[in-house]
């Protein structure tokens, strides 16, 4: 092995010494011990490597990204996980029955919900119509993370980050409402303490068409609604649960 070959091998020797036990480096390291010129080059190389490794490893990482991922994953499955997807459907149907909603949920035809989406301004009443007719859901999942993954995989609006308290909600499933000319809304159906909690997600640009005041609690029939936005999406939370209970989710 000449010095040039040794340098190429030693270039892959990690500054923290993680490769000390790897036999491929042994011969090159031995050669560096014997050859002063190679040894000097290797020492300078390691100093440079250590300095640059410190710089890369000190790059600041935004805290909210990891927290929101962990928050999404903290939503524990309501029931033991099964590999058979039919169980998920059965479990979700069970939750809906327990909530007394399965018999009152009216299937909405494509034409009917498109007429909601094509309104010039979509208000709480329009979303209330969609929420009231959420069945059949497109996908039944046992965590918000799973719902998000399904939505993102289909190019539908998917929550980028949610307030940490969403981790306390149980997940039922989701549905995508879209039309050729109108906006697309993803609906995440969640549950807390026996009450359905709906979360509508749409692109932030679409959010401008929503006739719902930002960060203000609204009431329609006996539903409470709250709207907020981040850089990418606009969210509308809707539920019959008491407002004070819902407020803890979005604070």
């Amino acid at each position, binding site marked *: 092995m000449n010095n040039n070959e040794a*340098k*190429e*091998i030693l*270039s*892959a020797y*990690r*500054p*923290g010494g*993680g*490769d000390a036990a*790897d036999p491929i480096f042994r011969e090159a390291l031995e050669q560096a011990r014997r050859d002063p010129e190679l040894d000097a080059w290797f020492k300078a*190389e390691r100093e*440079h*490597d250590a300095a*640059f*490794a*410190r*710089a*890369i*490893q*000190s*790059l*600041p*990482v*935004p805290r909210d*990204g*990891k927290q929101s*991922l*962990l928050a999404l*994953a*903290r939503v*524990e*499955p309501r029931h033991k*996980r099964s590999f058979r997807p039919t169980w998920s459907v059965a479990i979700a149907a069970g939750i809906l029955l327990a909530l007394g909603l399965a018999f009152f949920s009216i299937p909405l035809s494509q034409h009917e919900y498109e007429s909601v989406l094509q309104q010039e301004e979509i208000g709480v009443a329009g979303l209330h119509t969609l929420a009231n007719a959420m069945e059949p859901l497109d996908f039944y999942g*046992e*965590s918000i*993370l*799973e719902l*998000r*993954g*399904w939505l*993102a*995989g289909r190019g539908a609006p998917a929550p*980028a980050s949610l307030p940490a308290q969403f981790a306390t909600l149980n997940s039922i499933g989701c549905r995508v409402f879209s039309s050729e000319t109108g906006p697309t809304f993803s609906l995440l159906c969640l549950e807390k303490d026996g009450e359905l909690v709906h979360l509508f997600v749409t692109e932030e640009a679409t959010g401008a068409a929503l006739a719902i005041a930002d960060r203000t609690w609204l009431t329609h029939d006996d539903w409470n609604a709250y709207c907020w936005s981040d*850089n990418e999406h606009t969210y509308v939370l809707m539920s019959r649960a008491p407002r004070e209970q819902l407020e803890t989710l979005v604070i």
Partner: protein
Amino acid sequence: MPADSEFNDLVSAWYDPLYRFAISLAKDPEDAQDLTQTTFLKWARKGDALRDRSKAKTWLFSVLYREFLDHVRRARRYSDDELEADRLPATDSADAERVIDGRTAVAALDQLDKRFRAPLVLFYLESHSYQEIAEILDIPIGTVMSRLRRAKDRLRAILETDAKSNEPIPFPRKEAQS
């Protein structure tokens, strides 16, 4: 989806290194965060298919790298972007010195071709052996070594040039009147 505890463990262990890999490649903090989140979401959906769980780390970095290449193909904008150092996340004053170091590093890496940038960042994250870098980037081991060597030579030259260009311009002295 893989067990939640495993997912939590992976996020806790690898979110930061993955994000640092992402920002070294993509430069933009939002793009880096998207790449990192997308990587974990892919794990949530497909990680079950990985039989050898000890390969989870390599799987995550490999997915992030492929996602980045897809982004580049779709957007064709990363290579034309100048580093927007101001967009790097602000940190508290205690981190200020480290931020400058990180920015210098990212700015220097930005001047490298991405064929050299990716193995170099993986190397400097120190979590990966050269075999794992080869696996992540899907290139032969010999290529990893030669790219590291060339990338480091080039990086050192870039840093030296940048350091020289940042040296203060000497104030012209008046010759002492005799």
